[in-house]
């Protein structure tokens, strides 16, 4: 079983469109949407939810006004500025360390479990999908990603699947690192813009740090062919393979509007490029398939 994680650094470079197409092209796989902040893969794969789980993680402080003597110990020690001058807890600022509860001489602070979201095991026309919704404004996205990854891993082991295909989140922080754990291959989707190049370098530093084999895909490569050549040259000099280039295509937003993976929506050049990239991914992982 091989785990492929699709990430990008910069948002909106095409991770989800590529993952949905991989869902069509790969045999014997489970799909995972690790962009728990703003999960979109379900909009192309149309899952039917089979299992629904509540995700509880972390705690939030609550001050009982009847017991509170307004001594100020909690405010003095809270490093998250989560306690207001009138001794209310700002739930968005509280990081659940519990220090206030421990220092309160009146026992007025209790720590309550947070329900931060839900995760689902679903069926789709292309195979199982594990996905999640983190409630807006919540913390612990990294932990929810770890939970979703774990569930997908179990699913893959139970049914002896060949691939776990992970749609990652943008950025380089907590959820991205959590989505990379145990990855056999990281695919970084970039675009030939200065922002794309800048963010590619930063996310590459992360995959390099964790020692994860990494390949690059250049989406909308024809928006700036000079930058595309620059990315290819830079990557070559760093020993990172560019697996393919995908041309800009207005059929991409059209396929999203229709709610269909691009390779099912069209046979155009962009779709063909994704097919070629999938074959290259399989070759990388030593699992070639008859095409």
């Amino acid at each position, binding site marked *: 079983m091989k785990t492929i994680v699709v990430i990008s650094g910069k*948002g909106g470079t095409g991770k989800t469109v590529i993952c949905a197409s991989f869902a069509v092209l790969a045999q014997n796989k489970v799909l995972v949407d690790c962009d728990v902040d*703003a999960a979109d893969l379900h*909009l192309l794969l149309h899952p039917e939810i089979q299992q629904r789980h509540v995700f509880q993680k972390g705690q939030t402080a609550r001050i009982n006004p009847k017991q509170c003597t307004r001594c100020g110990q909690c405010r003095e020690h809270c490093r998250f500025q989560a306690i207001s001058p009138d001794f209310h807890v700002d739930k968005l600022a509280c990081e659940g360390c519990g220090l206030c509860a421990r220092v309160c001489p009146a026992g007025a602070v209790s720590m309550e479990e947070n329900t931060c979201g839900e995760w689902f095991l679903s069926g789709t026309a292309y195979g199982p999908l594990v996905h999640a919704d*983190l409630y807006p404004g919540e913390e612990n*996205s990294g932990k929810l990603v770890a939970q979703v990854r774990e569930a997908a891993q179990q699913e893959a082991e139970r049914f002896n699947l060949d691939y776990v295909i992970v749609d990652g989140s*943008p950025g380089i*922080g907590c959820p991205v690192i959590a989505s990379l754990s145990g990855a056999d291959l990281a695919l970084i989707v970039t675009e030939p*813009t200065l922002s794309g190049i800048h963010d590619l370098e930063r*996310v590459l530093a992360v995959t390099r740090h964790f020692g994860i084999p990494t390949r690059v895909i250049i989406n909308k490569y024809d928006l700036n062919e000079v930058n595309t050549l620059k990315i290819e040259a830079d990557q070559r000099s760093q020993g990172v393979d560019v697996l393919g280039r995908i041309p800009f295509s207005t059929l991409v937003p059209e396929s999203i*509007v229709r709610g269909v993976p691009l390779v099912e929506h069209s046979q155009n050049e962009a779709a063909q490029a994704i097919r070629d990239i999938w074959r290259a991914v399989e070759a990388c992982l030593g699992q070639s398939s008859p095409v």
Partner: protein
Amino acid sequence: MIISVASGKGGTGKTTVATGLTLALEHNIQFIDCDVEEPNAHIFLKPTITMSEKISLPVPQADPSRCVLCGTCQEVCAYNAIAVTSQEVLIFPELCHSCGACGLLCPHQAIDEVPHEIGTLELGNLRGASGREISFVHGRLNPREIATPYLIRQVKGKYDTDRLVIVDAPPGTTCPVVQAIKDSQFCLLVTEPTPFGLHDLRLMVALLQKIRIPHGVVINRCDIGDQQVESFCSENKIPVLMRIPFSLGIARMYSRGIPLIEIDRGYIQRFQDVFKQIEQMVLKQDFFTRM
């Protein structure tokens, strides 16, 4: 006044809008890039950096001469960042939230705090379209660090509220975004008219309603996709303040780091009009909260 520019989905054009607004207005502006995982605004604004400061998180370190391995620090740590063995105290700085509980509650005062570098804060300045000086702040998280919200708090510590503050927020809908936008008087949401854009816009609107921040929408690439974002906005009485049509020319210039107002000077007036509408909405809101 603080105006934040956000979007659930990445790559919708937050930075294009935030930098466009910043360059177009004739106010005394401070621009803050809170997307510390992937800061890109500097590519378009090209500020002269005048000060650079390393940002560290204070993390615990046990002093073996005082530590009796009692295990209190491990017990009070809500983040599993401390493990006490029979030989020593192991600290995992990348898991630490720097709440200070272990140090404060250690019965033998055996814990000191040492700085753990997580990123850099940079200050600078540039000139807007009218020649006025604009002050610039951004943070850059070191790859493999996860303390995104902490670094955002440090960046926000540089707020200059004598100026009009424009904040470029990170993508997503969870804790880093909340940190970035929670003290704004107005949040401008940038989206695209596709099911992805709509789905993530809904999440952001739910978040902004919960934390009661007035908001309006910019629809980028407004002519590629469908009408559902427009319908959603009109049904929910969310003003659409600007529509930016798709243009291959803009996309190509963007790829070279050229700001929207330099590609098409007509956008200077359009951004000024957006700001007038925001100002009116904020004044109205202010009036109602005073009543």
